[in-house]
């Protein structure tokens, strides 16, 4: 498991779906970083005549929406919100899931019982409905949305980490650490956790993809942060004009689907690169 970060990227680029996925993700990240440079006026400005179709006016390559806002500006600035929410929600759920999973797997016994029953229970509750309840009652803002997504998606990571800990805690190197009197916390953090990184990394790409979809779904319903335009917001706004101007929904939808597809492709590639033994099975 001594894969350096550089060689990991090189190996991903050699993998066909890894290459396609990474290129698409790079494009999305590039849009997020360049949003302020290419569209300094921001996504909310009414920049031109409303309902311009893509290509109708060279100044608005992707057209404008019903209020005359530039769809390209929305797409670029929207990628910031979608990617940021996706990534932060994934990080928070990885932190919660790793803490729960490692305590559960390392200590076993009643603690494991309690934590796993809790994890089971969390997985049974309809997650999108809970996310709506949280955002609806506490009020829509980016931190609430990130919290709502994280709180419903950590159980998957917890199970994964627990399974790895159950396997690793019986290994000789862990036993040796115990014998030399290393504290539990140190064994968990410095000895076992680094060995669980591979499955966590694989799962994280799917986690980001799911988080982006949940955020888009909330924004589509009108439960997004009213001050942040994400791809889901543009989709929701465009829906009203679906009959006459379908490009308003098609453009953000394409961005959303391509990004999620890219994350899934990278996830598959990571799985092949990091778990070569499993390659023939999938």
């Amino acid at each position, binding site marked *: 498991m001594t894969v350096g970060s550089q060689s990991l990227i090189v190996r991903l680029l050699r993998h066909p779906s890894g290459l396609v996925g990474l290129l698409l993700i790079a494009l999305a990240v590039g849009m997020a970083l360049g949003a302020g440079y290419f569209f300094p006026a921001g996504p909310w400005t009414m920049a031109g005549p409303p309902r311009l179709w893509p290509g109708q006016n060279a100044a608005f390559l992707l057209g404008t929406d019903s209020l005359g806002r530039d769809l390209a500006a929305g797409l670029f600035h929207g990628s910031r919100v979608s990617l940021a929410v996706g990534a932060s929600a994934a990080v928070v759920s990885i932190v919660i899931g790793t803490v729960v999973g490692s305590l559960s797997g390392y200590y076993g016994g009643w603690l494991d019982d309690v934590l796993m*029953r*809790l994890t*089971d*229970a*969390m*997985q*049974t*509750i*309809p*997650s*999108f*409905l*809970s*996310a*709506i*309840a*949280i*955002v*609806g*009652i*506490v*009020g829509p803002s980016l931190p609430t949305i990130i919290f709502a997504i994280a709180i419903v998606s950590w159980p998957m990571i917890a199970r994964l980490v627990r399974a790895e800990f159950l396997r690793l805690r019986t290994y000789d190197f862990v036993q040796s650490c115990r014998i030399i009197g290393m504290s539990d916390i140190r064994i968990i953090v410095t000895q076992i956790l680094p060995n669980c990184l591979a499955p966590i990394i694989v799962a994280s790409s799917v986690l980001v*993809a799911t988080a982006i*979809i949940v955020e*888009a*779904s909330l924004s*589509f*319903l*009108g*439960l997004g942060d009213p001050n942040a335009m994400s791809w889901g917001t543009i*989709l929701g706004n465009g*829906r009203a004009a*679906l*009959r006459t101007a*379908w490009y308003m*929904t098609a453009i953000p*939808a394409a961005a*959303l*689907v391509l990004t*999620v*597809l890219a994350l*899934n*492709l990278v996830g598959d590639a990571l799985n092949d690169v990091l778990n070569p033994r499993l390659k023939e*099975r*999938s």
Partner: protein
Amino acid sequence: MIAAKGTKSPLRFLSGPMPRYVLRRLSQAVLVMLLVVVGSFFLVKMAPGDLVDVLAGNSDMTADQMASLRVRYGLDQPVMVQLFIYMSRLVMLDFGYSPLNAAPVLDVIMGRWPVTAILVVSSVVISMAIGTVLGVVSARNAGNPVDLSISILMLVLYATPSFVIAICFILFFSVFLGAMPIAGFATVGTQATGLAYVWDVVQHLAMPVAALCTFYVAIYGRIGRASMLEVLKLDYVRTARAKGLPERRVVYVHALRNALLPLVTMAGLQVSALVGGAVLIETIFGLPGMGRTAFDAVFERDTNLLLGVLFISSLSVVVVNFVIDLLYMVLDPRVELA
């Protein structure tokens, strides 16, 4: 039914260690509901303002009146006492009153529940059937162009959120072709009865159900393919082939039965996800189900109704999962009853 000694009857859970197994599953179900209730309670506590503030928002109430209302609703009690009162009300399925519908929450939900149940159940059945077929076909053609094209289809379906699929369907079938009704559970003011009514409803539900299905077709397809490839390698399948059974029988009778087990496990998770997904689909297609109710409740700030929907949805999912666990035991004699 009395099983021969030494064999495992599919109905063995009716005797022996069954009570312990059922108790274990039941306690898990109770824990889920407890989590929902305690979670909902503290969620409402976290929100800015309490029930009386909301009521006062619509009228000019004096501070005295507000204080007496707080006493009446028990909001002056310690938090733990309030939680206990809240829980004992929910046990009696008393979710309070829905200002939005001017009716008790339970009545509102019972009226909407069947629509969501029809949506979810038909989506589970249809996506499982299509996904399994695609997975089996894919596995039998492993590596050739058929497998590759199915795999690419799965990848795209897997990446496309249900509400995007729903919009694509509306655009294509309703706007361009004009072939499908765009919204509603049945034609407004329809006089049709019997089969004609059923056909009308089927037409209205076709697109919503299909939109809910696609993601899970991809999941079942992927699991089905992997599981089929695994099973096809096992000794008993080779034995079946060796004794000269036709390939069709080997695949669809011998291998498929075991390959189906991981798919059944997935169904429990799918029901939970679909109940959430129904919010989007029912909102897009204007269906009067629980999801649409949750959506309306959020925007009208009808907290009682929202939490009632969350509670009943979770309860339904818990019951379905319980049934699936029992079903799994019937299907797979290897399942431990511990």
